[in-house]
């Protein structure tokens, strides 16, 4: 095991104010169980889970309430005991609606029911368990990427035939401003992360391991060095330069092993890499060794307007309003509420939305931090082009989309955009460039889906 400096620097990137000092020194704190949880069936990327309980049912912590519904999908388990009050369509952080279970956690089961005890799943010894058993465990524990995108982890850990994982990259960059959840996890739960890495190594057939951490987190680097000190095999901690979006999967691969993931639909596995967030790795360790599915996660509650910024361990389905109350409420009026980080998170309109497996942060920004700009015409300064880490001509894309020329945006490779926001961040004309990119990507995806449906219908005929 050794610690090395990253030798590859990607083009572009920006330096937003990190503001991590707000919550950096706050140890992970567990929230008391809220009286009501709203457990969404769509906590991951891909098809939402299929709800298998009904109003009035009493459910036990860890019970499957939503079944995996397709290949790219994971199951949902309830994060607490309670009675299902209702099943309703609820707004998620990204603006879409999905079925959600409204759970009354104060309800008691009817009649004499023995208290639930023991682990939820049978603990496994990872040394003796087979690869298939371990993979199955990751799947039944409902684990998906906890960094933000929520890609089902069992799919990632099971490369298609003919593809081999050479590098397992641990994403501990946490380059989003304000967020410190992964940082605290690395400090406080380093041994779990190590265990998770060993399990994943076994599943993936023994790839080399690269642990990527930004240089502004020396304590985390030290903690990982201690935890991994006596590990055998090819393991390196790679210290990355502080640059946004260092935590993006593609940029992490380049920064650690110098490989470039081609344009979509290529995936990291096409260049022999699997990237996992440190939180996901710890969740895998818990699922295997303790038999504990993914039911809770660490969420950073921060931003200038919250009284006590904290790193909160909260059950999935905790309402934002409960998180805010746990952190002492609002210290000043909140001008903007963001689920996730300031660069890639989603502005939400109500604290009635609840956390999911991917909620890494909740930011309450005061007026002084939530500027409202009026966007103007492009002045062709080229700053967005310089900032774009994907080598895109962001200005051209934005102009194309503005004049409804989605084809033009596609020709300018908008599909490779990772929606990092670096372009909008650097634009002196305050143009919502990233939003233009998302608009184009959405239309293109819709068109492709429509074409596929048409082709499928034609094939049926």
């Amino acid at each position, binding site marked *: 095991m050794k610690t090395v400096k990253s030798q590859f620097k990607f083009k572009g990137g920006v330096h937003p104010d990190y503001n991590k000092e707000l919550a950096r020194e706050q140890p992970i704190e567990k929230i008391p169980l809220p009286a009501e949880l709203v457990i969404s069936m769509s906590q991951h990327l891909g098809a939402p889970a299929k709800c298998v309980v009904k109003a009035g049912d009493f459910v036990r912590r860890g019970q499957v309430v939503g079944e995996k519904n397709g290949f790219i999908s994971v199951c949902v388990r309830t994060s607490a005991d309670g009675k299902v009050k209702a099943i309703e369509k609820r*707004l998620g*952080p*990204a*603006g*879409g*609606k999905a079925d959600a279970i409204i759970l009354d956690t104060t309800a008691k089961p009817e009649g004499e029911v023995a208290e639930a005890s023991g682990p939820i799943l049978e603990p496994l010894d990872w040394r003796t368990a087979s690869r298939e058993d371990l993979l199955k465990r990751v799947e039944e524990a409902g684990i998906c990427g906890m960094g933000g995108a929520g890609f089902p982890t069992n799919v990632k850990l099971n490369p298609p035939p003919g593809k081999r994982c050479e590098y397992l990259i641990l994403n501990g960059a946490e380059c989003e401003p304000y967020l410190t959840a992964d940082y605290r996890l690395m400090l406080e739960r380093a041994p779990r992360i190590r265990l998770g890495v060993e399990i994943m190594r076994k599943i993936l057939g023994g790839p080399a391991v690269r642990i990527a951490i930004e240089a502004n987190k020396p304590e985390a680097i030290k903690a990982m060095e201690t935890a991994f000190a006596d590990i055998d095999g090819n393991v390196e901690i790679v210290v990355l330069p502080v640059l946004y979006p260092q935590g993006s999967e593609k940029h992490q691969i380049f920064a650690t092993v110098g490989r470039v993931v081609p344009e979509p639909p290529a995936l990291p596995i096409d260049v022999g890499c699997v990237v996992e967030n440190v939180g996901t790795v710890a969740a895998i360790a818990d699922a295997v060794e303790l038999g504990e599915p993914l039911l809770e996660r660490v969420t950073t509650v921060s931003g200038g307007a919250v009284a006590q910024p904290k790193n909160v361990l909260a059950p999935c389905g905790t309402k934002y309003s409960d998180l805010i109350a746990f952190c002492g409420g609002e210290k000043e009026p909140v001008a903007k509420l963001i689920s996730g980080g300031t660069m890639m998170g*989603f*502005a*939400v*309109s*109500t604290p009635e939305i609840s956390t999911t497996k991917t909620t890494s942060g909740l930011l309450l920004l005061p007026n002084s931090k939530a500027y*409202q*700009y*009026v*966007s103007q015409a492009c002045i062709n300064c080229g700053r967005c082009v310089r900032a774009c880490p994907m080598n895109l001509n962001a200005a051209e894309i934005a102009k194309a989309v503005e004049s*409804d020329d989605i084809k033009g945006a596609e020709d300018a490779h908008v599909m490779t955009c990772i929606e990092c926001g670096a372009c909008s961040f650097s634009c002196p004309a305050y143009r*919502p460039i990233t*939003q*233009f990119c*998302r*608009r184009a990507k*959405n*239309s293109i995806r819709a068109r492709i889906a429509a074409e596929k449906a048409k082709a499928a219908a034609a094939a049926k005929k």
Partner: protein
Amino acid sequence: MTIAIVCIAGVGLVAAIVLAIADKYLSVKEDPRIGMVTAALPGANCGGCGFPGCDGYARALVAGTAPNGACAAGGDACAAEIAKILGVEAAATEKRVALVKCCGTRSEAIRVGDYNGICDCNVAAMTAGGDKGCTYGCLGYGACANVCPKNAISIHDGLARVDKRLCIGCGKCVAICPKKVIELVPASATIHVLCNNPDKGPAVRKVCGVGCMGCHLCEKNSGGKEAGHFTFEGFLAKVNYANPPTDAQIVAKCPAKCMAEDAHFESGN
């Protein structure tokens, strides 16, 4: 000089002969009916029929792969004419027009955020579901107005409105609206429920002053359930356009004020 003239003339002659021969042996006979059918179609090229333009639909009609009557813009008259040309039966069509099922104007329906991003409903809907408190209602950023080939839609007070006289029923607005709040309804129907929110009454009232509460009064006042003028989805009344109500009384009696008699707005274009 003379040589040049002779050369050019020679080349021209040879080319003319080749072309004349090619025309004789290689020409593709196009069914003259395609041109006739294309002429009979309205020529709006709106794509509402599902074919690439009126010409595309005409070809499909002549080839017999498309049903007559798919052109909403042309309506019955057009279908009848095509039937005459092709000697097939015309499927009876009713002119249909777009209806925006929402009446939550800026003053009636609350906005929960300041949205200052791109003025496009689909983008706004990607941002926290849009800035409207009611997540079912019209956002008013005019995605529908932008795709309408006839300029029949305009935005007034945060709400899209359709001019019935201009709308050709192509359905493009229906497809683009992220809130799925536009429906094609028979142009002859006069009474509409202008709301798309199936939530319970109190939840609707929290976000909108004019939303449907599902009180069933419209149903009661139009002859009860047996009369079948309305159906209900959750707590939302829907006009049964196969059997639309005609009594204007019920509009005035709607306590939520979300019903309208002939809701179509005349833009004056």
